[in-house]
């Protein structure tokens, strides 16, 4: 259990850096040597919800996940279930954002793809114990 929490904390930390970078760079030309479409994606109308940048929402998500994972790893409280319930909608939202990049905006943002990978990893690690318990049962 501790190893899983540590793994989630590491991935959430990477997500924090990614989301913080995008939040700091909001409204500024951003280097995009891999996918080439970052600025189109990050300045599109889909880059914010009610005026709040998605990167800022992502930052809150990653800080929360990181905190839960660390508290769980130190056995302050069993919080992995909370990680799963936060990661589940985040994973669904990542799929929607991926679809928007591919089929509506027609550009991909490398930082957004990295974030989608981090969310997917957190989600998969969070469901792993549940699956194993089911097999044992």
């Amino acid at each position, binding site marked *: 259990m501790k190893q899983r929490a540590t793994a989630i904390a590491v991935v959430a*930390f990477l997500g*924090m850096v990614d989301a913080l970078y995008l939040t700091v*760079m909001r409204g*500024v030309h951003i280097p995009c*040597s891999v996918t080439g479409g970052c*600025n189109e994606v990050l300045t599109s109308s889909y880059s914010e919800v009610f005026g709040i940048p998605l990167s800022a929402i992502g930052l809150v998500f990653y800080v929360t996940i990181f905190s839960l994972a660390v508290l769980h790893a*130190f056995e302050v409280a069993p919080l992995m279930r909370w990680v799963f319930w936060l990661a589940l909608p985040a994973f669904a939202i990542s799929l929607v954002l991926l679809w928007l990049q591919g089929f509506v905006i027609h550009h991909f943002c490398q930082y957004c793809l990295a974030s989608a990978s981090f969310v997917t990893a957190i989600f998969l690690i969070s469901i792993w114990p549940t699956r194993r318990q089911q097999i044992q049962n």
Partner: protein
Amino acid sequence: MSNKTKPIVIIVLAVALAAVIAVYGSRKSVPASETASKSTIEANSGGGHVRGNASAPVTLVEFGDYQCPSCGYYHPIVDELLRRYPEKVKLEFHHYPLIQMHPHALAAAMAVEAAGDQGKYWEMHDLVYTHQREWSAMPNPESEFLAFAAQLGLDANKFMRSVKSTDVEKRILEDIQRGSNLKVGGTPSFFINGRSVDPLPDGVDKFAKIVDDALQTPNQATK
């Protein structure tokens, strides 16, 4: 340190470290390729609006969108190139408003074209790019464009007639068609003497290097 304070300290330190890394990354520009790629996309020059020495050996064709932040970023870079190579480089600007993403891009292009009808195309082009952030955030930037027209001493009625004229619209549509034919995927898109500049150079010095390379191969001059 107790077992309950340890995780709090780790969380605070991690957030601080992430902030340091993110801010450091935002200040450090990613080096781009120093030369233009050997793209097979070629663009013959012609049409559009030309700035600089008309007989310059290097033609820098730009497909731009006035509401696109990257175009705003490249605007002073292109200006600096024209200053560095006053006799050797000319800019040929074409409108390529990405209407789906930038709701005011077409209105901005029409305002610049309309100013061109009164001989102030480049003055309006500069104003619109320089104040991009302000008018982009407005629900309807028409009043801002009118204010720019007044600042340039344009006849307001004539300006408004031009903005709504089919002639201005036609010129912009021709530019968009030209860009589509060249498979322009995003903005800004640059071509130097017909060759696509891809990836975009990060900074004026890297762009100048591409111009230097083009100057050393004069046979590629634009038809």
